[in-house]
């Protein structure tokens, strides 16, 4: 037996297995990343997440300052506290990144997402869908005799809940924007 406890000629053992298994709790964080609005910047940010094995739960991006040429990327990600810290450090050191804010730890923040739901059905189902939409303050933005398109804004959880209710009532299609978020107060 060698000191590695691998019998010569019999190893099914991988010598490359270096991952440390002691994992910590997984947290969900919403990050706001202010970047130069240049081609390739979004690809660089997304490439960081895929290349280093970080998760993206939701991602939105749009220019927020035309004269300053700045875009805001809102990304919801999950990971252990150490991984979240790494993500922030990795984002901060990127050349086109100006600021990184962790809205989950910086204080209270508002998070909103917009979604469109197409629901098709007749009779009871149709009436029930309309009634629930009212409770959720969803607007009807398109209707035919057999379908509705609802527009709903809210937290991702609210949108998930609305989706769950629509499913048995003839849910056909969903389009979601992903989360936009801002810290509360000034």
């Amino acid at each position, binding site marked *: 037996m060698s*000191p590695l406890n691998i019998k010569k000629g*019999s190893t099914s053992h991988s010598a490359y297995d270096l991952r440390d298994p002691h994992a910590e709790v997984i947290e969900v964080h919403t990050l706001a990343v202010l970047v130069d609005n240049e081609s*390739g910047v979004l690809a660089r940010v997304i490439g960081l997440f895929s290349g280093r094995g970080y998760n993206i739960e939701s991602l939105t991006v749009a220019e927020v300052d035309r004269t300053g040429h700045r875009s805001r990327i809102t990304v919801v990600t999950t990971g252990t506290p150490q991984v979240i810290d*790494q993500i922030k450090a990795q984002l901060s050191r990127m*050349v086109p990144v*100006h600021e990184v804010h962790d809205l989950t730890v910086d204080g209270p923040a508002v998070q909103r997402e917009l979604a469109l739901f197409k629901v098709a059905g007749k009779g009871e189902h149709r009436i029930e869908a309309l009634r629930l939409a009212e409770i959720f303050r969803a607007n009807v933005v398109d209707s035919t005799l057999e379908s509705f398109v609802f527009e709903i804004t809210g937290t991702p959880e609210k949108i998930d809940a609305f989706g769950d209710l629509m499913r048995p009532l003839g849910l056909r299609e969903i389009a979601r924007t992903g989360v936009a978020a801002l810290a509360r107060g000034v």
Partner: protein
Amino acid sequence: MSKAQSRQMTGARMVVQALKDHGVDVVFGYPGGAVLPIYDEIFQQNDIRHILVRHEQGAVHMAEGYARSTGKPGVALVTSGPGATNAVTGLTDALMDSIPLVVLSGQVPTFMIGTDGFQEADTVGITRPCTKMNWLVKDTSKLSDTIHQAFHVATQGRPGPVLIDIPKDVQFATADYTPPESARIGHYQPRTKGDPEMIEALVEMIETAERPVFYTGGGVVNSGPAASRLLRELVEATGFPITSTLMGLGAYPASGKHWLGMLGMHGLYEANLAMHGCDVMINVGARFDDRITGRVKDFSPHSRKAHIDIDPSSINKVIRVEVPIVGDVSSVLEDVLERWVARGRKVNREALAKWWAKIGEWKAVKCLSYKPSTKTIKPQYALERLEALTKGMDRYITTEVGQHQMWAAQFLGFEEPNRWMTSGGLGTMGYGLPASIGVQIAHPEALVINVAGEASWLMNMQEMGTAMQFRAPVKQFILNNERLGMVRQWQELLHGERYSHSWSESLPDFVKLAEAFGCKGIKCSDPKDLDDAIMEMIRYDGPVIFDCLVEKHENCFPMIPSGKPHNEMLLGEADTQGVIGAKGAVLV
């Protein structure tokens, strides 16, 4: 001609002008359709020397060798499509080892981008993950600003490679040239000064440490000569032991009193055990790479750690530290020294003496000893002789990747920074030969030796043509074991001696190969002839390919097998038979 008119120029001329303005004297490159306008400009001037390589990977490694041996950014120029894709390995290598490079690539004209044009490749897409930053310049009026920004980004903060992709029509079109002084280089301005509170905390750690160790890395070399000087001052003044990663060799002199030798997977016993047993670890410009830490969970379990790094993402990435200091090594070390002196230059001398006594015991193990032979050349012996015969010379060493690389790190001593160029993070076979040419171009009078393995060397051997053409008298010292030695070693130790494709068959006759290139070939297989052969290599005025036939089955020790902690080190062949169990148990 009015001043305004004189600043109008083509994109191609801007490239050459901007390079001159950044003090570039050498460009390593290879022409092709998409960079012809730039080559036309290069032809019409004499300030910038162009080194025509034989493969674009060679160009990038040469630029790396140039950069690492001078501290200045290296520059490479490649054409679109295959020229750019050939540069990818070099870019990745430079990213991993934080080497400042500016790589210029040609691209199909803007109106053809996206049409799958001839020699079109999505170069910025392909190189995005292997550059610190890259740009596709679609407008000549933005070209000069972009080049200035590229030099800024490559050299500021943690250095790294950048790439500028320049479509051919952008090279032909004219616009105003902005000189570097008035360029808009963006907001990128990493912080270099360390947090005073953290510096105070580190000074306190130094004052109270009982078993301290400095663990230094490539960041010290990258930070510049001042960083090495300050590090030496701090080490001498505190009397603390110091070890370094592969990348940091030379920042503290190998002849220095406090030097423990390299640490890590093939590092010295005393260095690794000092890391394992220390109570205070001061990481200066290193990144807790897995070749260093071994099993993370058991890494230096009883120490408080400080980490100085210019890149905040290096801190707490792998190992959690109590005292994180984001900043440039020289700036931080200066502040640390200043505070430590101001507070009375305190260290715990008594504890330190005990610590050195313990280290003395580890040193006495003589972990680098090997079984000598009078019949075959042991690779370690070859390097000992190379070291002895070149000591004190104006010497630069590059290496390929494998056992020979680790032996070179163990058996050669480096007294100064920027004298040792090796592919650390990426471990790129084929790095050493082109890198040696890049070093030699920067230091024409110096003795530049590439310590190579025969397999690695073959990967970029076409660059001997470059060495010949540009009279770069590089010495290729090939430790030829007719094996992919490092692979063979892992297979022996970890894969049940199943030597799957780890031998070098159908090797060329290296002496004849040298003759074919028009340089000198030397072959040596008898230890008795080795000194004379090495002297012949050194004295020869031109490139030499030295085929040093060494013991074929030698293993590189010490070795910490992947995923093992520092105190489970294999010291020699005997250990692989199971002796380490007992011995390891008595260690710290």
